[in-house]
């Protein structure tokens, strides 16, 4: 019985360590660990599973940002043009980058997953620059860039 208990403890340690071990190789250890630990699938996922969780986080963040953009249309009509471009860019993340990344990571051709993941960061940056320094979305942009960088590092481990 004692052995079984110990085994369980061991497993939990090893699980959290899989996340730690993986996140150590990304540019943002803390963000990586917090995102992966917040997901119930994280504790049992392999490397591609972890990458898929993070792609899911990209999707959630893009959806949230798109809602924010839609809300801003009314509040900040003077930003209409930049918001329109942002809306298009975030739709690309949701409709092209994320499905491409999920399919590529699942099917074992991670380099195409890398394309989608990097592009999510690119689209967010382009959106941000459209405001010429007066972006109401800066913190969301930064989050997307960070998740994109972390996810990319993990996707590359699959190559």
């Amino acid at each position, binding site marked *: 019985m004692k052995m079984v208990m110990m085994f369980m403890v061991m497993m939990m340690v090893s699980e959290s360590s899989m996340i730690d071990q993986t996140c150590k190789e990304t540019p943002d250890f803390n963000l990586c660990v917090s995102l992966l630990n917040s997901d119930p699938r994280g504790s049992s996922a392999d490397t591609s599973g972890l990458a898929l969780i993070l792609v899911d986080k990209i999707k959630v963040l893009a959806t949230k940002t798109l809602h924010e953009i839609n809300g801003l249309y009314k509040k900040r009509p003077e930003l209409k043009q930049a918001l329109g471009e942002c809306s298009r860019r975030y739709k690309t993340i949701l409709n*092209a980058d994320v499905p491409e990344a999920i399919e590529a990571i699942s*099917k*074992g051709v991670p380099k195409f997953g890398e394309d989608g993941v990097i592009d999510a960061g690119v689209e967010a940056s382009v959106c941000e620059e459209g405001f010429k320094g007066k972006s109401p979305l800066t913190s969301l942009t930064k989050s997307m860039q960070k998740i994109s960088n972390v996810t990319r590092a993990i996707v590359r481990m699959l190559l």
Partner: protein
Amino acid sequence: MASTESLLPLTSQQDPLSRSDLNSETRRRRPIKLHLAVYSGFLLIALYVTLIVTHDGSRVKNDETTTESRAYLAGVSEKRVSNDRENEAFPWNNTILSWQRTAFHFQPEKNWMNDPNGPLYYKGWYHFFYQYNPNAAVWGDIVWGHAVSKDLIHWLYLPFALVPDQWYDANGVWTGSATFLDDGSIVMLYTGSTDKFVQVQNLAYPEDLSDPLLLKWTKYPGNPVLVPPPGIGEKDFRDPTTAWKTSAGKWRITIGSKVNKTGISLIYDTTDFKTYEKHDTWLHQVPNTGMWECVDFYPVSKTKTKGLDTSVNGRDVKHIVKASMDDTRIDHYAIGTYYDSNATWVPDNPAIDVGVSTGLRYDYGKYYASKTFYDQNKGRRILWGWIGESDSEAADVQKGWSSVQGIPRTVVLDTKTKKTLVQWPIKEIESLRLTSKKFHMKVEPGTVVPVEVGPAAQLDIEAEFTIKKSDVDIIFGDDSVDTDKEFSCETSGGSTVRGALGPFGFSVLADQSLSEQTPVYFYVTKGKDSKLSGKDSKLSTFFCTDTSRSTKANDVVKPVYGSFVPVLKGEKLTMRIIIDHSIVEAFGQGGRTCISSRVYPTNAIYGATKLYLFNNAIDATVTASFKVWQMNSAFIHPFSADDLGVPSRT
């Protein structure tokens, strides 16, 4: 695309902001995959200790990693926003995007394309198959697209040849190659991604060999014919080659894979393409090159400039091993000797083995997943290569397509140096040449001259350059002119950094004010001996394409591409440039060094596209003799009955 430095567009070298940006996303060590197999209490305890130690050290380790080295990531073809503050977030519109579509390169009517597959010539038609996503302008849902042509230029789209409809290819009909059997029939081996995402090799063949269009393909009911062998990852087993004959009369194929970080090519022998004997040894392997995709293996003649059928071997033959490096997305090849008896291949020069960063490349720009075939119609070996996009996926989605294939190239060993291959656009491309203009111009140091050719978005340019001899002599006599110690197209600042003897060449896809331009140029330095140049050579010559100012848009990757190019004693400097809207293919010294690049101008489009000749050298006067042809469209379109028997539509 992408060499190690391609992440660094010119702009970022001048901009400290992007430096820090680079640091945050460049090299990181690849992770140690930790497989925790727990067998016993003893192990558990040992593990416990290890894990705690690892865990405690993790953050410190992380910091170390970031500063440690700039690893693999830098080499990857990637989409990113440049940090040039002059460049704005660019609102792509349909007028600008429509211009980007090519006129005489192979691309599908819409959506995503990647690797060339199973090219072959049969009953008067060249066949081309390609990885294709019918549903989107990004990768996914892969089927085999199919097209035919009488001349490798005027293509006709046919219905898909292979689609995922079996458990063994349910997740994708991936890359494969064709082999002609002795009776003239055809077998196609391709990789399927199974319902469980395992990569397996499958056999398919034409349903009706009397149909020159090879419209219908049958999948062998006994598929898969090969599954990942023990010790090979189930997702590391793809892209079978064309088969060649062994001296014992069997067929032999190779398939790329990896073991840990060593790129390898597995070897199988077969008589019927249904059952295979695996060799315990590999055709070749190179440590630290990662997964090998799309391996290609073929003979080249040491003495003749004609192509060889894949099974040819003998004293006058060298063998090429090419692999596409999954880690860096670079196609690397090496020249060596193949031993039939033990199915191994040995590189001539181990220092430039397949996949090492200093090794040879078909193309120093964007060019991947390439594949050759032997054209029995004209006795030549022809190279196909996938040239993807360098823009954002939002732009790809908006324009509705992504990727082109390079103009097919004949490939032979350089019989003069025997140290590189020589690639040249197939002769047939010249059938698209319309009007031409000849020029002979002397360009003084520091000058840019417009070349009046009319519209400049579809051009073929052949040029010859000579540097005034007295200028060269003065430089050699002047010790104050330093040897450029380590010139590199990619890191030495692009076409605006001036040296004694270069850069000089053409600025293509430029607008009137040169606010956008893509220089293709030579840069000559006081030479160190190179492993590729003649030992007597006093000069080292580099051939480069600088895309860093090719567009005002910032959501585009804009590297400086290029490499050393061997120039033999008595040779003039020559270049050929084929321009077709968003693609520029450049061939230095008759095809010893090739550079393909994708560019996306915003001003230099339609009638505003110009051509310039420039000489940015400080000391040298350069004379350029060149000819520029307007190029016709290839009018690539879906096949219809009208096309039967009509060689081309021009």
